[in-house]
């Protein structure tokens, strides 16, 4: 739906909100052609800005601006195939669109009714081309109660959000429900925090409501730091009003009049779209003083992070909001009792907030029908790494790993074998192929040494070295440790040194035992969840891939061919045609040309094992072993 109205009249009642919604919907012509383009950070990085510009220019030059609208939306999740273009109302789905395709798209698919085959999605498994968006297997198998809305709204348009029913839950809450009734409904829905902790949201709100103190805070944790996870980015960039509405409802429920968004510095578009959303909501009286003519007021500020993963931890985040360094503190007294500025504070994750309006709209019973007994609703996962359909996947809780990875994710590219999937980010663990049948929810993955975490799923294949993966996570956490407590600061340093030694052929027989001892110190002694879970990637890779560690230590060999010091590159003389590409690519002049069309020669003593020759060779004449 396209909304060409820009309303600035303050809404003084739910009736006025309804009237505005009606007028927006009525002015919409469902048969009008709309070109919907994803303008999320991912697609923008893939060139969507040029595509959008090309569409606008072409429509102008063909005098079609009045008859065809261009709508820039948030991320729908099919990132592998961006830039993504959908032509409504027929829902023709075009993928990997380039600016050069635009004239043809306008001429063939907009002015006429033709389909451009080469831009359609072709399922690699059966070579079937899909025309309509709803039939794309990647989307079809998901349950997109949250992400689905990303395509319906331009995130900078509050009118779009209102048109799809936005803020009606807020109106209902403010005028038809008491704060306790709101809390009870959220409790009944069994909504649990989506940031990784999985704490029951209704219980958190209840405790905050009953906590001592007249000043209370609502906080949106948008410091999504798990590498490989970008669910919150998509929600906050693509539908910021859904998060804001959830926060205002939460504020009403606990009795708070002040709140904060805490957004990662690395998400500038999310910061900007949140800022616009706040501004527009304030202009329309949906935020600020006397919301919708009620006597409830709520104001919100947007703070940015400074590049510190630890600030995703609630007490660290609050310290940072107080203008201090992101140091966690003991949670013997919970932040719902004493949090920001020592006041009761309700901190929830972006995805958690986004679930609130739909629960209140459709009811707790409806929500409880989705998911498992203890894990209700859907969860958005970011499926990345060695996977065909990289992107965001929203499925009911309890969906099996293998369904997510193979059915929706399309399996492993280039015919490689699945090896493991890392879930739960640096706090989680690796899950091997023997466990792929496990359902994903708050509790199941914890039983096998991992966790669902915030939803990051990093798929690994036979070319991934699990010792290198462990080393990567330890190095990551070393860099992100705040440095306050001894177990984390010193323990991770030691672990990093041991793993570096193992991957460089200097591993010792006692190293594995030392790693295990260090992991106990971290788990038992660290101050916060970063340190307490820091050893999980090491422990889980040791649990399922111990043999890889042993080969590195005993045989000084890296079976996956990743650890630089343990591999060597070699020119296969029979296959080399002397094109010289590797000679040019080699940064250390280790490869020498022996004349045109003569096989090249490598001086291994000069080789720094950067892999550039392996990358550029088109004849498969460089061997890695």
């Amino acid at each position, binding site marked *: 739906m396209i909304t060409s109205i820009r309303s600035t009249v303050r809404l003084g009642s739910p009736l006025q909100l309804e009237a505005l919604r009606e007028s927006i919907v009525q002015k919409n012509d469902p048969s009008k052609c709309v070109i919907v383009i994803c303008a999320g950070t991912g697609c923008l990085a893939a060139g969507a800005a040029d595509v959008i510009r090309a569409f606008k220019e072409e429509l102008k030059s063909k005098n079609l601006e009045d008859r065809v609208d261009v709508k820039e939306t948030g991320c729908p999740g099919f990132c592998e195939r961006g830039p993504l273009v959908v032509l409504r109302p027929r829902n023709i789905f075009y993928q990997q669109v380039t600016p050069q395709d635009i004239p043809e798209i306008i001429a063939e698919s907009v002015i006429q009714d033709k389909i451009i085959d080469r831009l359609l999605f072709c399922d690699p498994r059966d070579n079937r081309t899909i025309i309509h968006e709803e039939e794309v297997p990647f989307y079809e198998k998901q349950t997109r109660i949250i992400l689905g809305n990303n395509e319906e709204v331009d995130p900078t348009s509050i009118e779009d959000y209102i048109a799809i029913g936005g803020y009606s839950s807020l109106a209902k809450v403010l005028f038809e429900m008491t704060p306790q009734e709101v809390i009870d409904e959220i409790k009944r829905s069994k909504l649990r925090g989506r940031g990784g902790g999985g704490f029951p949201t209704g219980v958190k709100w209840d405790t905050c409501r009953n906590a001592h103190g007249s000043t209370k805070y609502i906080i949106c944790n948008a410091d999504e730091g798990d590498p490989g996870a970008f669910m919150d980015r998509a929600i906050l960039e693509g539908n910021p009003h859904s998060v804001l509405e959830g926060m205002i409802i939460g504020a009403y429920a606990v009795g708070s009049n002040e709140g904060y968004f805490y957004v990662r510095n690395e998400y500038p578009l999310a910061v900007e779209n949140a800022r616009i959303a706040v501004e527009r909501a304030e202009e329309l009286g949906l935020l600020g003083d006397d919301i919708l003519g009620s006597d409830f007021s709520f104001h919100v500020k947007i703070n940015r992070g400074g590049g*510190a993963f630890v600030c995703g931890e609630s007490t660290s985040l609050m310290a940072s909001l107080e203008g201090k*360094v992101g140091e966690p*503190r*003991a949670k*013997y*007294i919970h932040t719902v009792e004493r949090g920001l500025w020592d006041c009761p504070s309700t901190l929830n994750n972006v995805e958690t907030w986004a679930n609130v309006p739909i629960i209140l709209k459709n009811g707790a019973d409806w929500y409880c029908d989705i998911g498992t007994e203890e894990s209700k609703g859907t969860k958005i996962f970011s499926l990345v790494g060695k996977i065909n359909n990289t992107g965001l996947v929203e499925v009911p809780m309890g969906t099996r790993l293998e369904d997510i990875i193979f059915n929706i994710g399309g399996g492993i590219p280039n015919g490689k074998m699945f090896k493991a999937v890392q879930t739960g980010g640096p706090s989680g663990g690796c899950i091997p192929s023997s466990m792929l049948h496990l359902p994903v929810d708050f509790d199941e993955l914890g039983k096998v040494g991992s966790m669902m975490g915030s939803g990051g799923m990093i798929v690994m294949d036979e070319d991934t070295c699990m010792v290198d993966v462990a080393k990567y996570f330890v190095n990551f956490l*070393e*860099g*992100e*440790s*705040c*440095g*306050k*407590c*001894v*177990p984390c*600061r*010193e*323990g*991770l*340093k*030691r672990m990093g*040194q*041991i793993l570096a030694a193992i991957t460089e052929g200097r591993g010792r027989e006692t190293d594995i035992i*030392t790693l295990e*001892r*260090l992991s*106990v*110190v971290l788990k*038992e*002694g*660290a*101050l916060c969840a970063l340190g307490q879970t820091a050893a999980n990637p090491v422990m889980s890779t040791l649990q399922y891939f111990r043999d890889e560690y042993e080969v590195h230590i005993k045989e000084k060999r890296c079976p996956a061919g990743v650890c630089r010091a343990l591999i060597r590159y070699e020119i296969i003389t029979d296959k080399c045609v002397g094109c010289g590409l590797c000679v040019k690519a080699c940064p250390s002049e280790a490869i020498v040309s022996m004349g045109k069309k003569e096989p090249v020669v490598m001086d291994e003593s000069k080789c720094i094992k950067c892999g550039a020759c392996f990358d550029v060779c088109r004849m498969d004449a460089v061997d890695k072993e």
Partner: protein
Amino acid sequence: MLTLTIDGKEIGAHEGMTVLEAARSVGIQIPTLCHHEALTSYGACRLCSVEVTQRGRTKLVVSCLFPVAQGLEVQTNSARVRNLRSGILELLLARCPGSEELQSLATTLGIKQGEFGFAQDSGKCILCGLCVRACQEIAEKSVLSFAGRGIDRRVATPFYKPSDDCITCRACAFICPTRAIRFEGGKLMLPD
């Protein structure tokens, strides 16, 4: 007034006390490094960790910050606690192998040294933060703070330059458990 049990001994304590305070009030020793009665507790060294059981659940907490509660059961010297204590001291010794105070503490607690190897020899500073807190709370000058993060964390003056705000009260040097921060010729010398 409430009662809790420490190492099997029932003792009385007041609401608002920490487990460490309650233990010390009856002469039960718990080792500490980053704690001082005159300063707010920080909970960084983790050496004062104890095992507590509450509502049927047992966990490790730092006694310098954990509040007493009616019916709380505390173990200050269980195998789990001794294991953690040992690990912490070994890590600190790996960091500062030359520190006599740490070596002496290890001997007192019966902990073997050098198990974690790969010593990086960071001089004597164990980043307990006592000097920072002393400067904030006793001298009330806030000359010192922690700069950087993680393993690169260091005690510093702003921009590592001599500070005009320092009144040379020497509270920092006095309170430092390892003599890492000191005064030489009347000048503040930050840890190496």
